[in-house]
């Protein structure tokens, strides 16, 4: 066990954890931020996507000891009241079916739009391919990303 000072959703948080603990479980079990989902544990499904200094990363493969002073943003901290353009577009297109993967999808999409404000279909496919949606909402996700890009 060791103590880590983390910056999560704009707040400083001190946590006690085994240094190898993936951020996913620090967020979910230690901090109660359960919006970030467990899907595979091997960075193959994207359900656990968070932002590390604004970049989409898989939290299930990121040991807490490697985070250091980087800023972590989770789905709970993406916006104050669900009003991030990506979240608004998701609601407008009523994207979710079961909804389990959608936090990860939204975090990947928000990161994509940070880098590329007007992504092509190919750009969206490339950025989103690591996020599985078992319900098959891919066409709505693409439409929602385009709506969010328009602002």
């Amino acid at each position, binding site marked *: 066990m060791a103590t880590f000072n983390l910056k999560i959703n704009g707040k400083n948080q001190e946590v006690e954890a085994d240094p190898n603990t993936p951020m996913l479980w620090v967020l979910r079990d230690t901090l109660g931020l359960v919006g970030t989902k467990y*899907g595979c544990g091997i960075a193959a*499904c994207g359900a656990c996507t968070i932002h590390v200094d604004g970049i989409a990363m898989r939290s299930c493969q990121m040991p807490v000891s490697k985070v250091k002073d980087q800023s972590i943003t989770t789905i709970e901290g993406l*916006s104050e*009241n*669900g009003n991030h353009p990506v979240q608004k577009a998701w609601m407008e297109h009523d994207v979710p079916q*079961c*909804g*389990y993967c959608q936090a990860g999808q939204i975090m990947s999409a928000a990161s994509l739009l940070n880098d590329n404000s007007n992504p092509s279909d190919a750009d969206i496919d490339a950025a989103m391919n690591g996020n599985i949606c078992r319900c098959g909402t891919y066409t709505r996700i693409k439409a929602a990303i385009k709506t969010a890009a328009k602002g």
Partner: protein
Amino acid sequence: MTFIKTKVGRRSFIKSSAVAGGGMMIGFSWLAGCKTEPMIEEEILQMPAEWFNINGFLKIGDNGVVTIMSPNPEIGQNIKTSMPMLVAEELDIDWKKVVVEQAPLNTDLYKRQLAGGSQSIRQGWKSLRMAGATARRVLCEAAAKAWEVPVEEITTDAGMLFHKATEKSAHYGEFASAAAEIEIPEEVELKSVKDFKIIGNSKRNVDGKKIVTGQPLFGLDTQREGMLHAMIQHPPAFGMKLKSVDDSAAKSMPGIKDVFTINTYPDAEKKQWCDVDAFSDLVVVVGNSTWEVMQAKEVLKVEWEATSGFENSASHTEKMAAFAGKAKEARKDGNPEAAFKNAAEIIERSYTAPFLAHNCMEPMNFFADVKDGKAELVGPVQTPEFMEKSVSTRLGIPLENIDIQMTRMGGGFGRRLYGHFLVEAALISQKVGAPIKLTYTREDDMTFGTYRPAYHATYRAALDENKNLIAFHIKAGGIPESPLFANRFPAGAVDNYLAESWSLESNISTGAWRAPRSNFIAGAEQAFLDEVAEKMGKDPIQFRLDLLEKAKNNPVGEKNDYDAARYAGVLKLVRDKSNWGKADAGLNRGVSAYFCHNSYVANVLDLKVENGKPIVDKVYCAVDCGIVVNPDAAKNMMEGGTVDGIGHALFSGLTFKDGVPEQSNFDKYRLIRHSEAPKEIEVHFVKSEIDPTGLGEPPFPPIIGAVANALYKATGKRVYDQPFVKEGALLG
């Protein structure tokens, strides 16, 4: 107008005393509006000071806000929105004043609290509307009494009561208290389809905002004070069981509280249909956090022993083909033997599909707190009313002391019909004497499945010298069940018809998987019909329509379980919407149609093959599910089912080597991804006033046939064995 006797459902309408509520504020804008309306800025819905229970489905606040209980488990089929819409329609309330809550498991109040068979809307169609209509009726009676006017003169609109002659009006909240005291009427009037205001108008997912902001909704999100985390270790192969465990290393790991074994179902005779599990003897690790338990699991030293032979996928197809000789007749019309003997040409083709894992994105899990002879269980399960009995039987706790709370589910697809994980969680909590959350790792989930069976079907068609179809023969089976539906199309459309069925036992645990049996046989049948049409020199849609015309006007046999006119209806709709036969230049188009779970679906799919990979440009879906309750959500289901069907047809499969699943996570198990989804999906509903049927399963089966038929157009080669894209191989 439809008058419904309330007697049958009377238990559901027992009034209960008013419940006091707080004055909390919640945002509700995501409850409101439909696709065609722009998103409105968030409004705040003032919660009432007091709630009045009108019946088991709804309570009305003193300020006119209504809470509607959604009785069934939500697995992503969106019934948490569409079932309350049925109540709201007949209550005649403004949807913006509705708050939806997940109902608890309560078999006294609600019937069929189950998610399965695409039946929620179909089975709830009358009872949910009755709940709304009886509430509206007692509100009218309360107003009539207070205003001293005949109840027949009271009208309602969007949560308001009116008496025109005396110009009196009030909102529902003003009479909620009085209405709660009024006897439920003997019969109620239900609206005509033409008077629907909510049904048929899209309403957004009531959990939408919670989902996109990451609020706790799912079973895996459950957290309680003092809660411990638990995981199980099951045998690595089907056909193995636990022999011994050395837990010394695991027990000494940090954060570990206990390691022990449980037996979920020691008495096979007490098992219900939903108590399917391959592995009853399990090793359990309990600790302070998920990660610590995962680490301890790694150092368990467990010995397993063989109980029966190990299955190998490599030999399954051969084994199935050999076993097909033992098929039993399921239906016979005319004289198929003679027709095949006299045929000018016989077409024979065989089709196969592998086992599939359900792969819900939220792995199996459940929270349990068993103490003082009571069990509280929270989590994702499709069959709460059945699993309540299983927990009761196994733990010896009476049903009334078991409380199951349903969470939103990260997918179901049939996997959560089989709730052994509830029993496991309850046993673990009982043993450690603390609240626990049992979580399966992805690997546990994928390798301890109730899989879609492996299937095999051989079709034969006999043509005469004029290329007329004179006989049809299907022989279908699988491990461990047959996918045959003997009375489905084209039964009833061919004079000489033979359907045969067989099955082969296995120690691999299987169960219902989205559109059971149809999820294979539809694709096989629709691919075969395409090939038969080609040999006959007929357009594949016209060929199907000709058969359906015969089934409608001059059906063979009496047990045909489809409506030929509705079947033809979706084919004609998809033909027209896709400009079939007119705009085909340069397109590789495949068509298919299927009827299952009471709904009809037809597809046209356009694809191309580039660099050996399939690219689906567009899919047209035509659907007849009767009245469409929530159109945009229904469209979402059609799109998702279409993507799911394409994905599984092209890429997915679970294979076994010496009883061990060869895929245990998403690095090896192929699911469709963003770049492989269709570029566009168009959904068209048949306009209908027939009572609604479900959409959870019907989109899935037919699209597989459309994929196979379009692949043939693109490559010139027919595909018979799913998945159509083999690992490392290119198409073309």
